[in-house]
């Protein structure tokens, strides 16, 4: 189970990459407090105002192209960048951790009772 979003920003892939990987830039849009070492194996800690904290490990980091984070609860986020007319297309896929897949099967695997 996953969610998917796609959006074009009027900025170059390099500019978008900075906004996706530099902690002080991530604090402008992703979380309130960010620590991130944006290279494969690097650690990330994200904190929000409501006290929520999520930790992640960087699985892939190809500057200007692709960033993959594994959340410590087993979900993952894939961010892909592509240069297009007028800017950069960002494609986001967040995949749910296993526990929610089990719930999905429960919710969606209903069959009509004869």
């Amino acid at each position, binding site marked *: *189970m996953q969610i998917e*979003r796609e959006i074009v920003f009027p900025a170059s892939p390099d500019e978008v990459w900075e906004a996706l990987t530099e902690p002080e830039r991530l604090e402008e849009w992703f979380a309130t407090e960010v620590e991130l070492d944006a290279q494969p194996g690097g650690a990330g800690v994200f904190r929000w105002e409501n006290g929520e904290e999520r930790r992640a490990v960087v699985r892939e980091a190809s500057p200007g192209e692709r960033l993959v984070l594994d959340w410590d609860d087993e979900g993952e986020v894939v961010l892909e960048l592509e240069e297009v007319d007028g800017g950069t297309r960002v494609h986001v896929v967040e995949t749910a951790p296993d526990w929610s897949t089990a719930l*999905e099967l429960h919710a*969606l695997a209903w069959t009509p009772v004869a």
Partner: protein
Amino acid sequence: MDAGRLRVSRVFDALGDPGRRSLVEAVASRGSATATELAAELPVTRQAVAKQLMSLADAGLLRATRAGRETRYEVTPEPFGDAVAWMVDVGGAWDDRLAKLGQALRDRAAR
């Protein structure tokens, strides 16, 4: 049949068909969608998709809103429980974040 049981029966009928189940998942993963958008990615006609979306809305599984000449659908999380609630929550969080990211990039470009 009372109203509550009729509703449950409609939910089961609506989800008994694999095509309709995958439509619900397709709408949930996008946050919202129109028949035209979904037909572009599925091996079915727009008309067939529109008809199934309408029956899913009748069963209370999708919420329909008019968007110009088209009807836009989103998933009603309540009947599904945690799985679709996850999609709606996480999808909504990304909608907010991407809006803020766009603003941050525009602010920077303006400096």
